[in-house]
């Protein structure tokens, strides 16, 4: 009887997981609205190169910045957007895509700060605005980043909103991402994104890895240095490729033995929308600056040579990789049985002979990035301070050489 009940439960959960993998979020919001179009303006997600440019919270209410922005606005923007911010400046009247009306509270509330910065920076030179006939000039070469923030802060005052222009003040700006999150992510990551969804605990019962707690500062898969939040591109990569892992029996419905499914079947726009919602769960994303320059650079992979593998083997021993991963890389080092993650859950040392299960990817550049950044919240440390780039490549190639079949470079795995 209990066995039947367990089988039924297992089949039910498996069905749910397969359903999650197959989920196709709607291109419209739950309330039926498409991306709001205000006078032809589509508030589409900012592309990855702008996605991390969040305006510091203090800018929106800083009187000095608002005054600075007012001067810029009067000389650069008002001719189209109007002295009253209503989009009715004399040069804007005949434009096919009407200038934004900053007095439109609902329209302004839907504009995320990175979208706004992208628009000011690139103007109408990029799609989808170019195709709509936007005459908005790009200001990135004439206005500094601070000048662009200042003019945004001044434009924001027309909306009548007092306080920083952030998603937790304007939940409607992440409404589409919230809807997708509810459909695709809540079962594992939980309604509040704390990694406590009902299905998540069954993926690897009483063992790591568990679903990410998006409200914490610890993210495993990053291109940023140890202890920092990931870039949006990092999150996008994880969302697109999923997370490979042996996992428990409940994960067999996820092809390739992923502990997190790949969401590459979602459109890029939908993935970016859900990531904007995910970031909104952690205000740390608004407290950092210079994100792009903080990301660890991954140099182009060098040519693999026997000498490089020899050096890598020595580094493998010197860096004590074998304590956890074992001499042959099978995850059977002397410390392996005692490893725990930051939730005090037992965690397995990765079997380096199975690169198809490397959680952070198995291309040479993925292994290099993992070595340099570490995996936050796990015993895998960052070697960013102890290895020179060339040494990191030596070690990355040696790690990949441990795999069955001797796959090392070009083939890789994802």
């Amino acid at each position, binding site marked *: 009887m209990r066995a039947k009940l367990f089988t039924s439960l297992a089949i039910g959960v498996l069905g749910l997981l397969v359903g999650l993998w197959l989920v196709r979020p709607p291109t419209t919001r739950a309330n039926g609205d498409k991306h709001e179009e205000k006078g032809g303006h589509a508030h589409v997600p900012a592309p990855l190169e702008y996605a991390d440019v969040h305006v510091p919270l203090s800018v929106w209410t800083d009187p000095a910045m608002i005054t600075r922005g007012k001067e810029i606005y009067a000389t*650069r923007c*008002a*001719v*189209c957007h109007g*002295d009253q911010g209503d989009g009715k*400046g*004399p*040069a*804007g009247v*005949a*434009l096919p895509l009407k200038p934004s009306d900053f007095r439109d509270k609902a329209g302004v509330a839907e504009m995320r700060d990175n979208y706004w910065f992208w628009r000011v920076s690139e103007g109408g030179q990029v799609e989808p605005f170019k195709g709509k006939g936007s*005459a908005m*000039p790009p200001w990135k070469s*004439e206005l500094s980043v601070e000048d662009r923030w200042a003019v945004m802060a001044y434009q924001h005052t027309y909306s009548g909103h007092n306080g920083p222009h952030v998603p937790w003040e304007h939940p409607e700006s992440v409404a589409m991402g919230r809807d997708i999150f509810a459909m695709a992510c809540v079962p594992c990551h939980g309604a509040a994104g704390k990694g406590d969804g009902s299905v998540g605990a069954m993926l690897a019962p009483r063992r790591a890895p568990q679903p990410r707690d998006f409200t914490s500062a610890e993210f495993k898969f990053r291109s940023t240095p140890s202890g920092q939040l990931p870039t949006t591109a990092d999150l996008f990569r994880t969302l697109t490729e999923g997370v490979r892992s042996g996992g428990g029996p409940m994960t067999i419905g996820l092809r390739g033995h992923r502990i997190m499914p790949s969401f590459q079947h979602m459109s890029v726009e939908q993935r970016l929308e859900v990531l904007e919602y995910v970031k909104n769960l952690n205000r740390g994303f608004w407290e950092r600056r210079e994100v792009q320059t903080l990301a660890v650079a991954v140099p182009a992979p060098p040519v693999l040579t026997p000498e490089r593998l020899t050096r890598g083997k020595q580094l493998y021993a010197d860096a004590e990789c074998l304590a956890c991963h074992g001499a042959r890389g099978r995850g059977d080092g002397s410390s392996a049985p005692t490893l725990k993650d930051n939730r005090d859950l037992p965690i397995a040392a990765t079997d380096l002979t199975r690169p198809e299960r490397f959680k952070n990817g198995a291309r040479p550049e993925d292994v290099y990035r993992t070595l340099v950044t570490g995996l936050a919240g796990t015993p895998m440390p960052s070697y960013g301070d102890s290895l020179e780039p060339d040494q990191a490549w030596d070690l990355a190639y040696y790690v990949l050489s441990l795999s069955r079949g001797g796959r090392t470079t070009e083939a890789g795995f994802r």
Partner: protein
Amino acid sequence: MTIVLKPETKIVKFARPTEPGKTGFVEQQLALSDLKPGWFVSVTTKHESGNEVAEIVTVVVEKPQ
């Protein structure tokens, strides 16, 4: 798309008034030779004999060369 400019095409820009106390913008007529490469303009056209003929060219932004 090629837009044909004719002598009767009106070329305008909007500038701040120079008179003290005045606000808003005043329309200024420009000659064709005043237009510089790289400026952002909007053009109102009419279809004429298979061509798009400019009626009004409005300077949106004078970009430095």
